[in-house]
């Protein structure tokens, strides 16, 4: 670890901290439908959308209707995505003449992008046409994020309103999130990316003549080796920057290319790398401020922010420390950090990012539900790879996905005040609302569905050598980690992977699609039920027995609840995966 590395970590975080307040306040105005600077531009577009779709923007929805409409919209967009993938070979903007996407893969991808997961069982540059990427994948990048924001705003309204039956209008919240927040930011951001070298064009792939032609020996499936001379390099192109911007800002993470944010055409310079990490965190961080504003308890928003920040720094420290270590199994190599090299574990990492920025990116992308990668998590040291996995297993509440992170965190807040209430023997209250058995039951449902999907699917995959184990790229404890990571990432709607796993099989495409849908929609329904139930309640004036939710004590309790729930659930599985691998590696064992 170097001083410069830590300086970059703190610089990044300071930037997020600095922008959280103004952006959070702006978003509160957007969702409360107060005047903003952007009304002149977006209000006409908004009205136009409502007019042709027949949406009554003044009509409020109960939590059940909010949930039903959200589900309907998700189903429609998911089916549209599936259809376009299946038909891309006869649609325009397909200069490489890519074939229709196979049914199981198309389903997996449609589920993946609808749920804000962006798990990719495919190599984009050889599978998806420019049209498919723009029209469906980038579209979902906007709307899965906007839906997340709408949902958290509905929950915040549930907390702040009293004796109300409704939570707002789903269409209005989603539209305003897209138009007022995501779209203007993305136009500026995409152009900044292009100015650094992210590509944005509709060219067919370019064919370059290699400066030094290569002799390549390949082994065919029949075991015979063939030698061929490679004289050209095909360079994949495409409308990347426009998708890259929303991929990061909407915590989606689905790469335009297979190399994702490691690819020089997606993430060309250290500056774009900083922008990408910043854009993952900035909206989720700002939403804590929005929470504070809309509930008129700004200090509570910051207390939640502090809990997130504390968990973030623990993760960065462990990941950075682990990746800066030399791999003890490699010999006659120089892995020491020096002025002329970053040293450490460079497999799967880019020279321009080195160790610090790769470890930081991995932590950020899994704290949030982004899942973009600028280095390959599968090649991380055992404890370095443990950090992204644990981040997702904690529920992606460390800033978390756009919207999804905060509503996940608020479920833990409900549990924390409930536990605090139990300790002092009083009915727990949260910002003036009594937390009763229905709320806690729904919160527990939310918390339990998550490990049930992760551990359940992993267990089934492990029991089936033909279906589950045949896809592994690494053996030993790391093989378990690959499977565990896949279902963790899918259920957590993250989308990053231990990429060695060959996931483009019927079993993985279908089971991961199921995990993604469970992890998104089965968890949203109990969350909205809590929102609806809280909105109906009366306000209880605070008394001396009320547990304050804006103090450092509350932050500590909240962090404690998150860690205890996570550790009790996942420690046994983790101890057989990354932790065992770490111990065996230290003992000099390879697989």
């Amino acid at each position, binding site marked *: 670890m170097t001083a410069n590395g830590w300086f*970059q970590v703190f610089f990044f975080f300071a930037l997020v901290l600095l922008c959280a307040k103004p952006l959070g306040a702006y978003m509160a105005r957007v969702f409360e439908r107060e005047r903003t600077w952007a009304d002149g531009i977006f209000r006409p577009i908004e009205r136009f*959308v409502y007019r042709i*779709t*027949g949406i009554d923007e003044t009509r409020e929805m109960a939590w059940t209707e909010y949930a039903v*409409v959200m589900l*309907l*919209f998700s189903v*429609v967009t998911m089916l549209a995505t599936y259809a376009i993938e299946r038909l891309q070979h006869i649609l325009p903007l397909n200069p490489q003449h890519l074939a229709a996407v196979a049914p199981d893969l198309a389903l997996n991808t449609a589920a993946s992008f609808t749920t804000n997961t962006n798990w990719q069982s495919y*190599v984009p*540059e050889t599978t998806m046409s420019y049209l498919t990427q723009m029209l*469906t994948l980038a579209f979902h990048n*906007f709307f899965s994020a906007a839906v997340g924001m709408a949902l958290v705003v509905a929950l915040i309204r549930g907390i702040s309103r009293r004796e109300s039956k409704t939570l707002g209008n789903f*269409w209005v919240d989603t539209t305003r999130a*897209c138009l007022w927040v995501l*779209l203007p930011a993305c*136009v500026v951001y995409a*152009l900044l990316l292009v100015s650094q070298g992210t*590509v*944005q064009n509709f060219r067919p792939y*370019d064919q370059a*003549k290699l*400066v030094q032609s*290569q002799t390549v020996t*390949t082994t065919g499936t029949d075991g015979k080796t063939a030698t061929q001379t*490679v004289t050209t*390099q*095909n*360079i994949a*192109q495409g*409308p990347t920057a426009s998708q890259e911007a929303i991929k990061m800002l909407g915590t989606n993470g689905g790469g335009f*290319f297979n*190399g994702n944010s490691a690819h*020089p*055409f997606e993430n060309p*310079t*250290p500056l774009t790398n900083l922008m990408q990490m910043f854009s993952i965190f900035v909206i989720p961080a700002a939403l804590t401020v929005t929470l504070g504003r809309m509930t008129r308890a700004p200090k509570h928003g910051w207390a939640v922010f502090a809990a997130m920040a504390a968990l973030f720094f623990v993760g960065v420290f462990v990941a950075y420390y682990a990746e800066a270590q030399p791999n003890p199994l490699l010999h*006659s*190599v*120089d*892995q020491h950090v*020096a002025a*002329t*090299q*970053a040293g450490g574990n460079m*497999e*799967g*990492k*880019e*020279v*321009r990012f080195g160790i610090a920025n790769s470890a930081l990116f991995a932590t950020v992308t899994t704290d949030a539900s982004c899942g973009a990668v600028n280095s*390959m998590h*599968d090649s991380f*040291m*055992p404890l370095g790879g443990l950090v992204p996995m644990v981040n997702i297993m904690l529920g992606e509440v460390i800033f978390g996905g756009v919207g999804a992170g905060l509503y996940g965190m608020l479920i833990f807040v409900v549990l924390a005040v409930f536990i605090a209430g139990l300790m002092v023997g009083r009915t727990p209250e949260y910002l003036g609302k009594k937390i009763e058995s229905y709320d806690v039951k729904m919160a527990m449902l939310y918390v339990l569905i998550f490990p049930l999907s992760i551990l359940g699917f992993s267990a089934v995959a492990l029991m089936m050598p033909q279906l589950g184990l045949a896809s592994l*790229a690494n*053996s*030993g404890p790391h093989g378990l980690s690959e499977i565990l990571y896949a279902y963790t990432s899918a259920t957590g709607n993250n989308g990053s992977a231990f*990429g060695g796993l060959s996931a483009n099989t019927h079993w993985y495409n279908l089971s991961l699609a199921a995990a993604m849908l469970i992890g998104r929609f089965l968890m949203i329904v109990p969350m909205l039920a809590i929102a609806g139930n809280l909105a109906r309640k009366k306000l209880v004036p605070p008394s001396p027995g009320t547990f304050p939710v804006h103090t450092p004590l509350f932050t500590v309790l909240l962090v404690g609840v998150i860690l205890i729930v996570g550790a009790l659930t996942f420690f046994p599985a983790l101890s057989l995966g990354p932790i065992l691998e770490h111990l*065996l590696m230290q003992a000099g064992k*390879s697989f």
Partner: protein
Amino acid sequence: MRRNLITAVLYTVVTTVIFGLIYPLVVTGLAQLLFHDKANGQLIYKDGQLVGSRIIGQPFSAPQYFHSRPSAAGNGYDAANSGGSNYAPTNKKLIDRVAGDVAALQVDHPGQDVPIDLVTASGSGLDPDITPAAAEFQVARVARERHLSEDAVRRLISEHTNGRQLGFLGEPRVNVLLLNMDLDQASAAH
């Protein structure tokens, strides 16, 4: 329910046009206008022939060239099939591959430890850069093969070395393709 379904379908169509078509087309128009070279991948032409992109790495194995890092993209540096090896640190294939590459490099540089980036594959498989340490490691070989002085080779390296961006971001690095193309030019002029 039926009305909500109709709304959902109409909403999907309208917003797809705005966010799936108009948005990327506007960004493409602006990008092509303002940053034409960057938006098209910083392509390099030599005598009218496309020879690569300034930010996409290429494989080099001949002794007179600076070698790039190993690549897991297709058959190596396949820019239409990017990706990493995804080998775990405990994977025998990784350990064997590194040992093989180290042995090959140490033929020219006996007894020297090889800088780690030179024997590890990048995440994209298209890393255009090596570390200054990895460039320095290869100076003696390239100078000998090209009958250039080591100082002349080092001067070329420094021309293609990028420091940390804005003085503190990322890591120092050497662009291998541009360096090797300049070496060819220097040798031709020699």
